[in-house]
């Protein structure tokens, strides 16, 4: 695909359609290409600089720091090779963080997709005023992390919260939503799902609306029930979008920080101490920059794997 500037002047699509003045053209093309190189620096320069300083350099620096011991200001002191990684992967505490993150990410993704499908399925029906419901269902897209945390912290509040009140009214046992390790995880999952729902709904609805209606008409003539149509037409037809949303939700889940910080601070007893929260704590509270760097790199590898899977699948549908 890529041609060197010298050979590519006569075949470039922008210049090749003018055959009559080829002799003079190739000369001016040479200058065009030489100029292109100069323009490329101007057009790409700012972005390259920013990505270099704040994305590429820090990745290499993180890798570097993860191979050392560091002092309290993050300067490397002793080279220790992979010791930080070995320590992490043999520490019950870190394995617990990996496990709770996995549970959280998988639960959030599965529940978000199922609820998103339910909402999108109802909202794709041809009914008067359905547009209002579509708008309302997508509303949580406008909720930022700290607003969501305030709403749900009140709902889960042990003494005066909404769920506590409901339990009292219905004479149900009180649940320690944010004080019990298991329920704290459930609370964080519920809040995350709620935050994700608007976006997921909107994407799935868009996909459902692009399924050709003739498929449903044909199925209706054959006597297929709505349920059959959902599972045998809609879901298979929107499976690429389902895949896309799932990966996005997974990746965002691995990066979760705000809700943890606002709702549980990793607790109780590390029950919600997820990967990014740990990095933050280890680096900026404990001053253990080397270990936090190794944790950062493990997180990067996890996210890179899912992103690569996403690219691989998208590649088939995106024209480069």
């Amino acid at each position, binding site marked *: 695909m890529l041609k060197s*500037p010298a050979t*590519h002047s006569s075949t*470039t699509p*922008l210049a090749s359609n003018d055959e009559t003045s080829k002799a003079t053209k190739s000369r001016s093309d040479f200058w065009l*290409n030489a100029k*292109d*190189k100069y323009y*490329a620096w101007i*057009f790409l320069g*700012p*972005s390259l600089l*920013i*990505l270099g300083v*704040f*994305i590429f350099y*820090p*990745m290499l*620096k*993180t890798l570097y720091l993860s191979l050392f011991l560091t002092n309290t200001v*993050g300067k490397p002191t002793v080279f220790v090779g992979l010791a930080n990684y070995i320590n992490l992967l043999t520490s019950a505490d870190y394995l617990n963080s990996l496990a709770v993150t996995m549970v959280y990410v998988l639960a959030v993704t599965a529940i978000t997709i199922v609820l998103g499908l339910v909402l999108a399925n*109802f*909202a794709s*029906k041809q*009914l008067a005023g*359905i547009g209002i419901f579509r708008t309302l*269902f997508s*509303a949580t897209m*406008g*909720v*930022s992390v*700290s607003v969501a945390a305030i*709403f*749900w912290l*009140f709902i889960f*509040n042990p003494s*005066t919260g909404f769920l506590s009140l409901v339990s*009292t009214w219905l004479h149900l046992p009180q649940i320690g939503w944010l004080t019990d390790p298991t329920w704290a995880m459930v609370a964080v999952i519920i809040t995350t799902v709620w935050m994700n729902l608007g976006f997921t709904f*909107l*994407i799935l609805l*868009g996909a459902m609306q692009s399924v050709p209606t003739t498929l449903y008409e044909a199925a209706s003539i054959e006597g297929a029930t709505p349920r059959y149509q959902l599972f045998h037409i809609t879901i298979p037809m929107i499976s*690429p*979008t389902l895949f*896309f949303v799932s990966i996005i939700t997974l*990746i965002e889940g691995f*990066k979760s*920080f*705000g809700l943890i910080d*606002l709702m549980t601070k990793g607790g109780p007893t590390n029950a919600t101490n997820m990967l990014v929260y740990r*990095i*933050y704590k280890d680096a*900026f509270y404990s001053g253990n*920059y080397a270990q936090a*760097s190794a944790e*950062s790199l493990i*997180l*990067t590898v996890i996210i*890179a794997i899912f992103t*690569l899977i996403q690219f691989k699948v998208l590649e088939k*549908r*995106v024209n480069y």
Partner: protein
Amino acid sequence: MEVVAKQSLSHKILNYALLIILTVVVLGPFLIGLWTSLLPTMDIAKGNFLSLHISLTNYVDAFTKTPILQYLGNSLWISALTTAAQLIFCSMSAYAFVFLRFRGRHVLFILFLATMMLPFEAEIIPNFMTIKAMGLLNTYSAMIVPFLTSAFGTFMLRQSFLQMPAELKEAADIEGLGHFQFYWKIVLPYNRISLITLGAYSFLGAWNQYLWPMLTTFSNAFRPVQNGLRQLQSEETFNDWGMIQATAAIVVIPTLIVLFIGQHYFKSGVNEGAVK
């Protein structure tokens, strides 16, 4: 036919009922939050949730006793500058990848794509040190400079630029338009829908930043609204549930209005950027 029509009527009612139930479930946390923001904190503390002492006192308190307006202003400024910068720099780099021929173009594009795999959350340690070394801690710049451009934005605009008809470039060449003129006069106006979409994404992305501003700002003068709300909760006001809910409502209502107006663009943007 009669039977079908009757069935579909009862079906319709059932559908509406289910839609309304789903709406209440989805909007529940909003409604609870908005309702409690109107109640006196005393009533909330006593569990008197169905109190009729509704007023806007909590909102008045939020505006007068907390720096919520300062936080909102900070966020608005940071998000606006980030959005403007991303629109300029992402469109410039997308232009280079589509309309310029130069050695290493393919390698650089792969490099851009690769940055989408690297989570910013995993790079906070060196980035914190960089910002500190630049003397930018506790400034607006700390929250803007690392996000002046984005690989996602470049990728999304590149997809959009690639779909421009080739005749436009040919016509521009005949007219003798240089790259800057073609970029400014033709490419940007032609792709305005994609630019608006990217703008909305950039704005929302900047608005929702949490971890990075938390690390780099220490004073209310620069603190954006997400971290401001956290600050309010960690202060004494935490027990003042009515006022806390009012601050949340003050933050969420403008976002919802923007979202409802801009919904169309978000949808087309996701389709353009990824699902195409």
